[in-house]
C-alpha cells in the first residue's frame, strides 16, 4: 500500500510540476503566423483600418500549461499579411480609412499532451464600410492545423508550432475569402 502511495505521489508531482515546465514559456511568434503565399484574385479599392483582434489569450506567467495565441500577435501578423497580400490599397491601425476590419476569435482548442497536436480555431471576420458604418461582408469559418510528431520534440514547442500554424492558415483562409468577396463587387 505504501509503495502504491509513493507511486501516486510521484505521478502527481510529475503531472503538477514537470508537465507544466515541458509546456512552459512558449507564446506563439507573430512572424511565424504570416502565410508564405496569398490566394488573391480580387482587390478592394480603398484603405482598411484593422482593429485589435478580440479573443486572443495573453500569456500568463503561471501555471503555463500551454502555449497561447495573443491578440497582439494575431493582429500584428494579420496587419502584415494584409499589407503583403495587397488586397487593400493600404492598411492602417489608427485614423481614417475606407473600411474597418474586425476579427474575433470565437474558439480555439487547448491542446492536450500527445504525439500529434491538432488545433481548430474558429474566427469571425467582418468588413465594415466607414461611409455607411454597415458591414458589407462577414464570414465565420474555422481552420485546423496538425503539428506532427516530427515538427518539434518538446510538447511546448509542438503546441506553439500548432498555434502558429492554425493562425497562419486562418489568416490565409480569411484573405482568400475577402478576395473572393472583392470579386463579387
Amino acid at each position, binding site marked *: 500500500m505504501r509503495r502504491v502511495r509513493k507511486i501516486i*505521489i510521484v505521478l502527481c*508531482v510529475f503531472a*503538477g510540476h514537470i508537465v507544466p515546465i515541458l509546456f512552459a514559456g512558449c507564446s506563439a511568434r507573430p512572424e511565424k503566423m504570416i502565410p508564405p503565399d496569398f490566394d488573391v484574385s480580387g482587390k478592394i479599392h480603398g484603405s482598411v483600418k484593422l482593429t485589435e483582434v478580440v479573443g486572443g489569450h495573453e500569456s500568463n506567467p*503561471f*501555471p503555463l500549461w500551454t502555449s497561447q495565441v495573443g491578440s497582439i500577435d494575431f493582429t500584428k501578423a494579420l496587419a502584415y499579411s494584409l499589407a503583403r497580400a495587397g488586397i487593400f490599397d493600404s492598411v492602417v491601425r489608427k485614423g481614417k480609412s475606407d473600411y474597418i476590419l474586425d476579427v474575433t476569435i*470565437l474558439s480555439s482548442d487547448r491542446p492536450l499532451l500527445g504525439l500529434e497536436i491538432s488545433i481548430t480555431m474558429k474566427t469571425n471576420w467582418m468588413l465594415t464600410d466607414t461611409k455607411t458604418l454597415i458591414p458589407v461582408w462577414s464570414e465565420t469559418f474555422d481552420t485546423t492545423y496538425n503539428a506532427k510528431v516530427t515538427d518539434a520534440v518538446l510538447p511546448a514547442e509542438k503546441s506553439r508550432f500548432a498555434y502558429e500554424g492554425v493562425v497562419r492558415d486562418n489568416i490565409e483562409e480569411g484573405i482568400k475569402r475577402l478576395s473572393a468577396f472583392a470579386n463579387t463587387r
Partner: protein
Amino acid sequence: MEKNFYITLFISVLLAGCAGRQPEPVSAYYFGDENKSCETLKKEIGDIQKRMLAILPKTDKTVLNTLWTLGGTVISYTPTPAATAAGFVPYLFVDMKDAERIEYNALARRHNRLLLIAQSKSCDMNDIRAEPIPTINEKAAEDKKSK
C-alpha cells in the same frame, strides 16, 4: 476512503486550470445599429461604459493565478503524503480562460463603433463620455509610451 481520495485527486489533476467561464464577446455590429436614434445610441453607449467599468477589475488574473499556483506548489512540497497530494487542488482555481479580458475588449470595440454611428448622426453627446475606449493592450501600450 483512501481510494475515493485518490480518485478525487486524479480528477483534480485532469481538471487543473479549468476554472473560469467561457468568454462571450459581443459583436462590434448588430443588425439595425445604423437605424438607432441618438437617445438609444446614447443609452447603449452609457450601458456599455458601465459594464466595462464593472468588468475592468476582473480582467487581470495574473496575481490570483500566481497565488493559486504558488499555493499549490508550497502545499505539495510539504513533506507529508496527504499535503503533497492535496497541493494539486489549488490548480483547479487557476483561470486561463480570460473571459473578462476578452469581453472587455469586445465591448470596447462595440462602444467605439456605436460612437462612430452617433458621430455620423451628429448626436449631442455632451452628457456622456464620448471618447473611444482603448482595449486593454492598447491602454497598456499607451501607458508604456507615456512613461
